């Protein structure tokens, strides 16, 4: 179409280079903006109380100290307990959720299951219309008696319509002939699921498992609604309480009584946040691949 003169090629190269520069700088800058709050939180947690009080949170403190962490470690009961609750919720919720949802996805994908479309719609409809927060709250508290029960943090999130459809859509790629030959070999419906479909669905299981685990690890909303005793607080809710508390309350919350003026209360807030996010940041480089893969498996359409 165009005749390529030397001039044209040079101009093409120049504007391409300009674009490259713009892309590298904006992407780099945005990545720094994404990273900045994390960095500030971490450096703040290593600041001395004196420096925070007089000069505020800084990215480059004059002096690094681990006194906030020392304090957290010297009175770890509540924090350790919150960790236990969160780990319990994450492990139980993710395992049960994966099992039930992969089964549901498998059944909805069986062509010989006559009512599969009916049940798919039955599940799908709940994403379109809901009774709302208040009726659900009344159900949970008054009729199911789940106030202050650990199950109240697991049950509301254990099954999700979207993940069931993600599972089903993934299983669609498993050829029917596998089912047929397994049936001829005498394998039952459940055995086909357990021994053939599940092993072939590992990518989908990994993705949904990651989504679920992340949700349970970061869960605080249901804790806020239903949980009353501090011994059942999960990590994020414990952190939220710590941030919103005054200095004296923090001490009581951490279960100690010492001279208040000596205490690194402001850096404790940040250190608690670091400890609560730590595992995610640590695991992030290893799991984000699966996450990105999962996003492209079938995130757009349910």
């Amino acid at each position, binding site marked *: 179409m165009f005749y390529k003169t030397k001039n044209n090629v040079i101009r093409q190269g120049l504007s391409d280079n300009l674009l490259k520069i713009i892309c590298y700088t904006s992407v780099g800058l945005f990545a720094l903006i994404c990273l900045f709050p994390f960095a500030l939180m971490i450096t703040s947690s290593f600041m001395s109380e004196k420096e925070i009080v007089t000069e505020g949170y800084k990215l480059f403190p004059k002096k690094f100290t681990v006194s906030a962490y020392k304090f957290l470690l010297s009175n770890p009961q509540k924090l350790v307990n919150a960790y236990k609750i969160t780990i319990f919720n994450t492990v139980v919720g993710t395992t049960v959720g994966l099992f039930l949802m992969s089964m549901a996805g498998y059944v909805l994908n069986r062509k010989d299951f006559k009512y599969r479309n009916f049940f798919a719609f039955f599940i799908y409809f709940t994403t379109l219309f809901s009774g*709302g927060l208040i009726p659900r709250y009344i159900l949970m508290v008054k009729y199911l008696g789940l106030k202050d029960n650990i199950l109240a943090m697991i049950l509301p999130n254990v099954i999700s319509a979207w993940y069931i459809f993600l599972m089903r859509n993934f299983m669609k790629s498993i050829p029917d002939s596998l089912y047929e030959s397994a049936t001829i070999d005498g394998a*039952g419906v459940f055995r086909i699921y357990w021994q053939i479909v599940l092993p072939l669905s590992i990518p989908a299981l990994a993705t949904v498992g990651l989504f679920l685990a992340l949700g349970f690890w970061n869960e605080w909303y249901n804790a806020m609604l239903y949980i009353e005793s501090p011994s059942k607080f999960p990590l994020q809710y414990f952190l939220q309480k710590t941030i919103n508390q005054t200095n004296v309350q923090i001490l009581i919350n951490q279960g100690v009584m010492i001279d208040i003026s000596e205490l690194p209360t402001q850096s404790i807030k940040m250190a608690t946040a670091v400890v609560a996010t730590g595992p995610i940041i640590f695991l992030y480089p290893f799991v984000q691949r699966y996450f990105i893969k999962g996003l492209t498996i079938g995130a757009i359409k349910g």
Partner: protein
Amino acid sequence: MLQINSHNKLMSMSREIRKNKVLFLMLLPTVVYFIIFHYIPMPGAYVAFVDYNVNKGIFGSKFVGLKNFQFLVQNGDLWRITRNTLLYNFVFLVLGNIVQIAFAVMLSEIGSKWFKKITQSIILLPHFISMVIVGVFAYNLFNYDYGFANMVLTSLGFERYEFYSDPYIWKYIIVFFKIWSSTGYNMIVYLSVITGINPEIYESAYIDGANSWKKIRYITLPMLKPTFVLLFLFGLGGMLRGSFELFYNLIGNNSVLFPQTDIIDTYVFRSLVGTFNFSMGAAVGFYQSVFGFILVLTVNAIVRKIEPEYALF
């Protein structure tokens, strides 16, 4: 005739259950779950039409008709939270998609593999943390006594600024954190569309003398359009649903900021834990569910007309 028909249906259903007993059993827990946690609360929305009394329960409380709704309209609450919810979501949707597309396109232009990998991971990182941590970040940055922003202001010779008592500035802070935390997710969806574009198209455009700007303008962006339309339309369908976790962790119970930051979800939440006015909260929740449902149906009907294969149902 009708009776025989329904009798036959029941017969075939029970035959089906007997035939596929195991399949039904495998689906049973999920079905029971959805009945208990999703279908049973639906008629519970009736609480919006009564004067709820905890001891008498939902169906024992006194029926008051539309009185709760009337009250919400008259005191202006309903209008205020609806306006805020719609405006915030609209900004999130438009600005969010622009930023996501911009960064997806820019990332695709980057040649260095390690730079691309690292920045992509960092931009997705905020998606992995809980909104509680985002609340911590806001505290870390905007706290009056120790916040980073105030330290920068004072070191530049300005007065400290009381961020937590200025409702107007929180509009921008909320939008900032929303964009900050949600860019990575859809950016990757867009990026995967770009990587799926046939490289031959770009090559022939290059031979024809198109520079990178033109390739973006005439190839990449048009290729992203269907995905954009899809994400945008279904975003419109969810316009009445708020990002409760974000708003609550940034604003909390700071009522000074409510005029500009109160959305439907935070209002319902407060009626539950703050004022204990269950009926009023349920009225707002019912209004949100019904109009949200109508919105989704409308959007879906439009999508079905334009691009039938994209319709959700």
